[in-house]
């Protein structure tokens, strides 16, 4: 969760949703996101809504967190029902952070268990947790598997010590193959997160990180260009000149290298920053975000979306716990999207996917822009002839620019 919340409308204290969310709900998948706002240390580049024990003044809130989260699960179930939504079993669950695995596996299991009690879960559902390499053991992973988790996503980031150092990562490179093996042994699918373009990272450093990650044969890889977020320690370091800045051309070259090596290793891209070994191993929870499905986000600062209504919870864990202690919805604000905005979001999100967009679904300006996009090498010509807008490799790197060109002014 990013640390700044949007400005929106007020949200009702009982979590009730406007009637429009019921339309077509039966056809939309339902998922759950669980935010765990704790980390052992704060990485210099990270602006997610997460806190160290010291920042929160002791471990008390961590101990009580599972109970608080479970109470939001219950509130969510009540609110969805009271809003007239049909009962829908969970198709995907995603525990993200922060560092979910900083909590005891039992706590994560408890929250998941409470959610399954409320909604049930689809056979073959995808249940993921993010994890830092130094926050799991063979035992904790086995416990997660038993509780119903199917997938773990490790924040590997890099295999190069000096890069990990700039990123403030606490794990050693050798820890990664170990935890990957443990997850396999526990029967969990494995994804690795990588970051490229860190100040001081050479193209060869990046190649080495990619080759190393691929040598562990993950089922899935996310590779993110480093974003220097306002207000982070990294931003201050760059401003002061303590570390060099980042460079878009360097990022582009590294993205191209990533796509080349990851594809060669047998994984296919399916979203700008994501590659999966088989289509089934794509992260279905993330795809739900891009496709505009329904999900409820549990936890401080978590975002939710149901049928064109988006809302977000209060940011701070203490404020969040306070709301739930009074049985009040922790939502801080929400927005109800009109048809036009929903369409803008659909175009903005679907353009990033390998499945692309139907050209006939674009407005007039968008349809007219296609020829220019083909000429500039950003959109695949044969697919366009069949009515689909698919980004080329070059187009993926300029996806936001493409979206601006196909949206009405």
């Amino acid at each position, binding site marked *: 969760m990013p640390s700044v919340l*949007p400005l929106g409308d007020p949200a009702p204290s009982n979590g009730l949703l406007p009637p429009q969310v019921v339309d077509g709900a039966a056809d939309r998948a339902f998922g759950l996101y669980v935010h765990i706002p704790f980390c052992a240390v704060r990485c210099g580049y990270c602006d997610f809504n997460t806190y160290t024990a010291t920042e929160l003044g002791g471990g008390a809130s961590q101990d009580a967190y599972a109970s608080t989260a479970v109470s939001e699960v219950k509130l969510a179930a009540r609110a969805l029902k009271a809003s007239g939504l049909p009962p829908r079993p969970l198709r995907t669950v995603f525990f993200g952070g922060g560092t979910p695995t900083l909590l005891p596996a039992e706590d994560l299991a408890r929250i998941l268990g409470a959610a399954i009690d409320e909604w049930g879960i689809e056979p073959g559902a995808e249940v993921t947790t993010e994890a830092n390499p130094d926050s799991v053991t063979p035992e904790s992973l086995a416990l997660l598997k038993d509780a119903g988790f199917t997938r773990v996503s490790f924040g590997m980031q890099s295999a190069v010590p000096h890069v990990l150092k700039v990123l403030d990562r606490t794990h050693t490179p050798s820890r990664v193959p170990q935890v990957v093996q443990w997850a396999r042994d526990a029967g969990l699918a494995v994804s690795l997160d990588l970051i490229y373009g860190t100040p001081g990272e050479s193209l060869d450093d990046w190649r080495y990180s990619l080759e190393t990650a691929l040598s562990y044969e993950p089922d899935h890889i996310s590779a993110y260009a480093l*974003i220097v977020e306002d207000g982070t320690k990294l931003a201050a370091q760059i401003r002061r000149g303590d570390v060099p800045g980042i460079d*878009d051309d360097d990022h582009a*070259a590294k*993205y191209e290298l990533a796509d080349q090596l990851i594809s060669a290793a047998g994984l296919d891209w399916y979203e700008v920053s994501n590659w999966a070994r088989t289509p089934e191993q794509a992260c279905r929870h*993330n795809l739900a*975000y891009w496709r505009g499905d329904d999900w409820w986000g549990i936890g401080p600062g978590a975002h939710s979306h149901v049928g064109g209504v988006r809302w977000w919870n209060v940011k701070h864990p203490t404020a969040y716990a306070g709301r739930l202690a009074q049985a009040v919805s922790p939502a801080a604000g929400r927005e109800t999207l009109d048809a036009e905005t929903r369409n803008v979001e659909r175009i903005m999100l679907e353009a990033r996917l390998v499945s692309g967009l139907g050209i006939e679904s674009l407005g007039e300006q968008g349809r007219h822009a296609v020829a220019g996009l083909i000429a500039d090498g950003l959109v695949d010509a044969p697919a366009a002839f069949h009515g689909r807008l698919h980004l080329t490799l070059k187009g993926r790197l300029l996806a936001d*620019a493409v979206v601006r060109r196909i*949206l009405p002014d």
Partner: protein
Amino acid sequence: MSPMARTAPVPAATDPAIIRNFCIIAHIDHGKSTLADRMLQFTGVVQSRDMKAQYLDRMDIERERGITIKSQAVRMPWELDGTSYALNMIDTPGHVDFTYEVSRSLAACEGAVLLVDAAQGIEAQTLANLYLAMENNLTIIPVLNKIDLPAAQPEKYAAELANLIGGDPDDVLRVSGKTGAGVEVLLDKIVRDLPAPVGNPDAPARAMIFDSVYDTYRGVVTYVRVVDGMLHPREKIQMMSTRATHELLEIGVSSPEPTPSKGLGVGEVGYLITGVKDVRQSKVGDTVTNLAKPAAQSLSGYADAKPMVFSGLYPLDGTDYPVLRDALEKLMLNDAALVYEPETSAALGFGFRVGFLGLLHLEITRERLEREYNLDLISTAPNVEYEVTLEDKKVVHVTNPSEYPTGKVAEVREPMVSATILAPNEFVGAIMELCQSRRGVMGGMDYLSEDRVEIRYRLPLAEIVFDFFDILKSKTRGYGSLDWKADGDQVADLVKVDIMLQGEQVDAFSAITHRDKAYAYGVMMTGKLRELIPRQQFEVPIQAAIGSRIIARESIRAIRKDVLAKCYGGDITRKRKLLEKQKEGKKRMKMVGRVEVPQEAFIAALTTDESKDKAKK
């Protein structure tokens, strides 16, 4: 020494014999307005407690920049040997852009106080204004100012002045506008030495208009000097050039606040209010007469101020165009030197081509438009006016480079100036080098004193009007001064350089330059644009061309990455808001073909080093 006058002569009943009309002329900053302050104070028209420095510089822009832009006339009483006299003093601007203001003021006077900074000596506008005064047959009182300065060299500069206008160095008065030393002696000398105005009180009225100013409350206020006869309130007057008639609603003198009077008689200087709304109906240089008893012959007027440099003014926000149009209309009411006509630019939209007296005039006008009318403006690189003769003998006047004819050009003529440069003799070599490199032809050189020379050159206006003065200053360690005036035109080997983005010509960047300088302009502009225009999704070639011949090229590499890689944990709202912001940003871009050029890039590219803050010359 004279005391302050006990009784002031009353307007309309003042014998011309006790009137003295003079102006204060000098090089810029030699202290005219400060000396005027002391006169206002010593004659009692402004009380000490109301005094403020450069009292007559009333416009905000004059006060901020510490320079005079408009002449101001003030009537002051002064007593000498028991007689009360009426002095009309006109404080004039010193900057070369406003020389025409000086020449108008001179026509209302019999004498001029030629002021010279005792620490600087004679400078270029000292000479220029002196010659103007001599052409008008004025009696000249040479005065050294700022004698309180430790760096003052009164002996040396008194000799220089005496040498210039003839006479004895001992006759050169020494004053300090700052301390007031010598100012009363100067007032006495004005009364003694300057001739009284002469005119026929019984003849039909004739008054010369030497200034016309628009005032929101009073309409047009017209400043006149009466030559013959008498003007009274409520009577019908006629403008002799247009035959337009008006009723005199008010007549009076500035003292320095407007003070209505029973009329104005021979030799008097004052103002008229007729209720007209446009200064052009009360034209500077015109003669006012009485409708009932009109004069047969008008006084000889002066030539209209002629615009020298032209620039396109465009509102940053296209919807401000009507605001700009109204604002120009209003400014023009007060500034007869301002000319403009609408024009359109493919790159900048709707705007106006505006003619100015010089860069300072441009800068001040632009600043007033922005400040007083709350506008954000882009001004295109200034240029002079060319006369292009085509092979079919058709003649076109080009004030906008993008209108330079594309057909067969037989001949191009460019405006010329005669320039006078004053500097210590050690800089002669450097100055000659500079003038030569600007296609100048030397006209002559004189020693004003042992170590100071006057160098005369004939130069193309386009070569001196922009950065020349700054270079001169730096080559003479600040000691050089420059004056110029229009001096015909000449045939020149000029070409139009176009700038193209991705093959698309950008009209706002076209320039007319001498063939030898075209390459330098092309390299400069393409290089600048490469820095200023953000990378696009495709490579953008930038070319400079004369006709179809490319003389310089640069290219902006295509941007390779424009995508937010990270998924913000389902915070789609943030992503959408970011997109909306980017789309808004795109709307503020000017499109040149497919190339998105931010307005800031246009502004920066058009802000030549020449047009940056050249307030003082």
